């Protein structure tokens, strides 16, 4: 990997009016999806998919990644001002951000969150950049046997960490895998589960399934809930830019904490399935633990805002690593981004490191730029961002419905896909309402074809003995370990509940 490639990617990005323009458009969109409680980055990617059809793969990937990277920058706004988390991982920010707002320090808390988000995003991208040369030989040593087991590992990670029930997670993941088998069998050429329908010969369209499983249930839930997204008064949204700047200075006054939590966040992001919630809460816990005055936390300590916010944004850089180089999404948001990247013609996996390293560096620089520019743009619109939480959900629903059908139709040009929207939309709403996790479905659908092709290749080369290869044994141990960890954590939680 040469320095010239790193620099040429940066120059290519900053001298391209199209790419810079797309980043500038993506940032307010990402902040919007973060700032409106209940929307979030996953839905943001899903709804932007129709807009990237026909785009060049680099442009499309930069646009979606830049949008996704700054979701938590916007998400901290309702957490701090109203005590309503914009997205799940922003919930940790409430612990000290909301008390700060109640004490009249809303601007300072927002500034700290903003500075921490920007710094965390940049450090997360730096961690990813530093690890690429280390990772390259490891990734290239992988054979079909390891890829098969990696796919299974990805599924167990997500299944065991995305809900309260391992069985439910495993069932939904297995269902995603079964749906991935719809279409022509790559080995025999036999049509499987197609019911004689030509449009299913290529398999169930990934974009259609994602749109239906995520966007439709969210909109129906929003419609059922009714009213505006936030139910608190507007008084809390009053603060000055001067306070915001003071808060940004706090991030650098606590530079050692900011650096530590950024690195922890990036590392957590690399572990598939741990997700943003874990990153922000672990870093919040670390800030409390390492503080000389832990009693201030929960009452409006600025470190309690800095720690989760650095982690929230730095984990995006970390989670790009398994997503791009192993094809195993680092989080549920990355699972959807992975689907979108595949749709754009990018094939994540070890070949990325050989054939598409320039694209990888462009994405890393896009991550850095998006995080820095988000800080600047936020300062300009700070006073109005808080008002997004008062937008009425009912106005969004019909537009999202149209976008869902548009995205589904454009992804394959098959009108029959719109019927699948109804089918999977109904299923997705059922899963959401009954508390079943939906991300494992996407993981199964994305990883299913990789698992099937890799398994057949591994069986053809080594037969069942592929499971006894040294790296295979490592993966089998990791699969067992991830399930054992989940069971231990669940048992511990239960014993704590009984104790309480």
């Amino acid at each position, binding site marked *: 990997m040469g320095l010239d490639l790193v620099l040429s990617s940066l120059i290519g990005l900053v001298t391209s009016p199209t790419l810079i323009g797309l980043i500038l458009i993506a940032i307010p969109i990402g902040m919007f999806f973060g700032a409106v409680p209940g929307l979030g980055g996953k839905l943001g990617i899903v709804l932007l998919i129709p807009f990237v059809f026909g785009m060049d793969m680099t442009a499309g990937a930069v646009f979606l990644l830049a949008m996704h990277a700054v979701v938590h920058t916007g998400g901290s706004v309702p957490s701090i001002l109203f005590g309503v988390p914009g997205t799940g991982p922003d919930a940790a920010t409430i612990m000290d951000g909301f008390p700060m707002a109640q004490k009249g320090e809303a601007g300072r808390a927002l500034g700290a969150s903003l500075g921490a988000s920007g710094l965390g995003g940049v450090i997360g991208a730096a961690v990813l950049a530093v690890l690429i040369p280390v990772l390259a030989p490891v990734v290239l040593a992988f054979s079909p046997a390891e890829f098969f087991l990696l796919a299974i590992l990805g599924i167990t990670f997500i299944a065991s960490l995305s809900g309260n029930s391992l069985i439910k997670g495993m069932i939904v993941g297995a269902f995603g895998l079964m749906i991935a088998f719809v279409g022509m069998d790559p080995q*025999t050429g036999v049509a499987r589960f197609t019911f004689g329908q030509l449009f299913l010969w290529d398999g169930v369209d990934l974009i259609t399934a994602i749109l239906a499983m995520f966007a439709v249930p969210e909109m129906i839930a929003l419609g059922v809930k009714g009213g505006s997204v936030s139910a608190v008064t507007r008084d809390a949204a009053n603060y000055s830019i001067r306070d915001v700047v003071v808060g940004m200075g706090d991030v650098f006054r606590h530079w050692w904490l900011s650096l530590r939590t950024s690195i922890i966040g990036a590392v957590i992001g690399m572990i598939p399935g741990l997700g943003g919630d874990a990153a922000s809460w672990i870093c919040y816990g670390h800030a409390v633990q390492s503080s000389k005055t832990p009693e201030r936390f929960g009452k409006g300590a600025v470190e309690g805002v800095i720690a989760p916010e650095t982690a929230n944004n730095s984990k995006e850089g970390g989670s790009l690593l398994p997503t791009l180089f192993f094809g195993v999404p680092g989080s549920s948001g990355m699972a959807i981004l992975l689907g979108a990247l595949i749709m754009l013609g990018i094939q994540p996996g070890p070949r990325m490191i050989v054939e598409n390293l320039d694209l990888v560096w462009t994405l890393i620089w896009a991550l850095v730029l998006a995080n820095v520019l988000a800080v600047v743009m936020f300062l300009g619109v700070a006073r109005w961002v808080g008002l997004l939480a008062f937008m009425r959900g009912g106005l969004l629903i019909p537009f999202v419905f149209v976008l869902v059908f*548009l995205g589904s139709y454009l992804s394959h040009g098959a009108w029959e896909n719109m019927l699948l929207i109804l089918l999977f939309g109904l299923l997705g709403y059922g899963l959401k309402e009954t508390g079943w996790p939906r991300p494992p479905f996407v993981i199964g659908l994305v990883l299913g074809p990789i698992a099937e092709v890799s398994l057949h290749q591994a069986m053809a080369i080594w037969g069942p003995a592929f499971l006894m290869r040294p790296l295979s044994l490592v993966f089998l141990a990791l699969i067992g370990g991830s399930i054992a960890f989940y069971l231990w954590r669940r048992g511990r939680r239960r014993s704590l509940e009984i104790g309480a």
Partner: protein
Amino acid sequence: MLAIFAGMVAMAVGFPAEGRFLPFVIGIPGTVLCAIQLAIEVDAARRDPGGGLSDGERRKLRTAGILFCWLVAFMTAILLFGFLYAMPVALFAFLRLQQREPLILSLALSAGGLVGMWFIFDVMLRLPLHGGFVIEWLFG
């Protein structure tokens, strides 16, 4: 879920050996897991019979059903009349009838949506949108 898994496994019986291998490897344990989950839920329901759906839950279910009907209506309109004709009408109908928004706001949002879609997808991206079966039958 149990029915879906069992049905897919049953269908896979008819595939050639290599083609049914993974559907069996995933589908059979999936069916077993579904059966276990069903047993857990039946057992939980037996321990805590509850009193059926509350009024709030029934209302929630009804609203969700109405919204799902709107989704079906949107799809039908798009399939029959195409995106460009169906979208503003469907948007207006939803905003006015379901959300009871003011006439001017409903008209403005529907028109804005149409212009936005036409400009982004037709003018800028030049993507072919579904024309609608009725429109194509009428105008070719």
